[in-house]
């Protein structure tokens, strides 16, 4: 199987979808001729044509509305929002419209589509190119929220998202587009070629939505996270010699409570981690559910490892980011409690 990075895997996923179904269309700001600012749609326009892969005006609300209208006519839109930080102009169309069309029409219409968006920090992007706004969307009935963490999953989750028939907010951790990240500031980039999940089949396959994966089995504590931090957690376990069990959530809504509860009930010590600011983040939802399901199995308070309640800083990026060292401290805290 060829080695791919996340960009190439996403590109391959869209290519497969475009090949298989003439109703699939791909669009976004700079997503056509130029292939997107991160090149995720590179070459798709020249292969599939101007009417299937095209540029849009700089209007995220209109991009989301276009997807809703197209889906009502039976098309399967994959829309790119250039950075997750730019998704807010589309919030009314996504939250008040797209998420509810199936419900408010009692199933007469649906808004099956994928909104892809580069997400998260660690690239010196400053406050407008580093956000992790997943919790704004996990709070919305009717949406599914996916965060991929490696090339294999990126492609399989993207195809599964398109096939789900419901709107999916598909966040792509741009820090790990080109290689996994160990959470140590300024370490040289590693390649996906040496990672088992960097091997990506060229053809069609899916990775099931709603299923988490235990990416490292362990006995000492459970770490539940998603996106870039999956790799930071693994690096922390290796660096500190901690036998952590690491769960990559992959789908945030609906999240895989069975996998979470099984691990937590067995181990009783938990770190939940997110890059986003702390208050009202998705970690809070996970912790609330863990105390409902696993309260009597807990040996220590659940540790919430997050960004701070501040806008994402530029120069002091690594003071904000949940780094490898902060993971080690979190794991030790729950193990020593």
């Amino acid at each position, binding site marked *: 199987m060829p080695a791919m990075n996340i960009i190439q895997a996403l590109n391959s996923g869209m290519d497969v979808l475009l090949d298989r179904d003439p109703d699939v*269309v791909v669009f976004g700001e700079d997503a056509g001729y130029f292939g997107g600012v991160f090149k995720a749609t590179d070459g798709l326009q020249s292969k599939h044509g101007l*009417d299937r892969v095209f540029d849009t*005006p700089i*209007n995220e*609300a*209109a991009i989301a*509305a*276009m*997807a*809703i*209208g*197209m889906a*009502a*006519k*039976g*098309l399967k839109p994959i829309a790119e929002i250039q950075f997750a930080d730019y998704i807010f*102009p589309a919030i*009314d*169309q996504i939250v*008040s*419209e797209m998420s509810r*069309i*199936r*419900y*408010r*029409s*009692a*199933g*007469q*219409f*649906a808004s099956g589509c994928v909104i892809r968006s580069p997400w998260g920090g660690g690239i010196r992007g400053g406050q407008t190119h580093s956000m992790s706004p997943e919790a704004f969307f996990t709070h919305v*009935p*009717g949406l*599914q929220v996916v965060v991929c963490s490696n090339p294999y999953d990126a492609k399989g989750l993207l195809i599964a998202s398109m096939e*789900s*028939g*419901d709107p999916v907010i598909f966040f792509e951790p741009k820090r790990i587009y080109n290689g996994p990240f160990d959470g140590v500031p300024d370490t040289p980039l590693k390649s996906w070629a040496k990672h088992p999940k960097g091997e990506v089949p060229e053809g069609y396959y899916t990775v099931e939505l*709603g299923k988490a994966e235990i990416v490292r089995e362990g006995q000492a504590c459970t770490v539940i996270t998603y996106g870039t931090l999956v790799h930071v957690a693994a690096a922390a376990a290796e660096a500190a010699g901690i036998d952590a069990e690491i769960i990559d959530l992959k789908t945030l809504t*609906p999240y895989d*409570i069975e996998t979470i509860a099984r691990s937590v009930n067995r181990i009783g010590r938990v770190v939940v981690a997110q890059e986003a600011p702390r208050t009202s983040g998705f970690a809070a939802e996970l912790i609330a559910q863990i105390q409902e399901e696993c309260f009597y199995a807990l040996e220590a308070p659940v540790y919430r490892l997050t960004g701070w309640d501040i806008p994402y800083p530029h120069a002091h990026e690594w003071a904000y980011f949940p780094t490898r060292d902060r993971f080690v401290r979190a794991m030790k805290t729950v193990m020593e409690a």
Partner: protein
Amino acid sequence: MSNGQSRFRVPAPPYRPGDEPDFSYLELQKAGEASRPDPLIAASQTGELATGLVGVLDRDHRAVGSWNPELSPEVLREGLSHMVLTRIYDERMLKLQRQGKMSFYMKSTGEEAVAVAAAMALKPGDMVFPSYRQQGILFARGRNIVDMMCHCISNSRDNLKGRQLPVHYTWAEGKFFSISGNLGTQFPQAVGYAMACTYKGDDQIAASWIGEGATAEGDFHGALTLASTYRAPVILNVVNNQWAISTTQNIAVGDAPTFASKGLGYGVASLRVDGNDFLAVYAATRWASERARKGGGATLIELFTYRGDAHSTSDDPSRYRPRTEFDRWPLGDPIERLKQHLIGGSAWDEDRHARLEEQMTALVVQSYKEAESHGTLHEGPLTPTETIFEDVYAKPDWRLRRQRQDLGV
């Protein structure tokens, strides 16, 4: 306009309660004066149409000028019948709301032509993305009245399972999209749908309606930008009924001469139309649909009309506007004007009109009896409670299964 000094300005409506309304200040082009160009004219050539007023029925109720769609008396009587039904239905539903039979209602009094004439000028396969005041489309497209009422009283036969406020209809079979309460959102959605029509290569188009107040929303700008960029086959209707709840149109139009003129800067063909003139609305919609189907792209149509009654059952218009405004409205009543036109052409008379009203009243009364036999909001039966967990997703996930158990349904 300026006295040489910049001052903070908040536009005030011309008249508030207690004032004597006088609309003689409105400069309205007379019926027949605007000429009808080829539908594939360049958008930039529609400037006079955007600031003028497309009209067909003159003050003596004769059809005049090049916009006259030359409709047969049968078609006109059908239109009259749909408009009469719309008004009687609205009156009846308002009464029922006052009796506590439904939670909320919104009438379309005075705006019947805006919906009915447009729906009749479109093809049945064309998709409509209406706002909450175009119930006339449903009558023109032949929706079952009992079904409409079952929705409004949220009973066991409500096709929306009690999820939407009354009048927020959806009817996929009649190509009628789900109505939102959030203003203006349907405008760019309609453009996306229209783009998909051209992508699929079929002959269908889309049409949408928003109020003049909602043109201030970003979605108005988004819709026009998309429609122009992708030359989408869509008709974007702005129903200028003068009032956005208690706010007059001058809080949205700014210093622009008309709402239609706002389309010109986007490169979209733009018309201002007498919205109380059935023939003019029909003709303008036909013109725009021909333009759309022949590859000319979108048209923005401002329908100049007057909201004859309250915004909804939740507001009392006597608190913010003179009671006599509708009577003084210079463009009259759309039903009365079409009726007089037909009478003038000896295709209708007062007796027939009275019989039509009796028939429609009987139909509405009878339909309501049947609708009520399927339940009402307060007395039930409603759609089974467990259905609140359905249709959130194609398949419910564990959260919804557990929450349904929690509720015990």
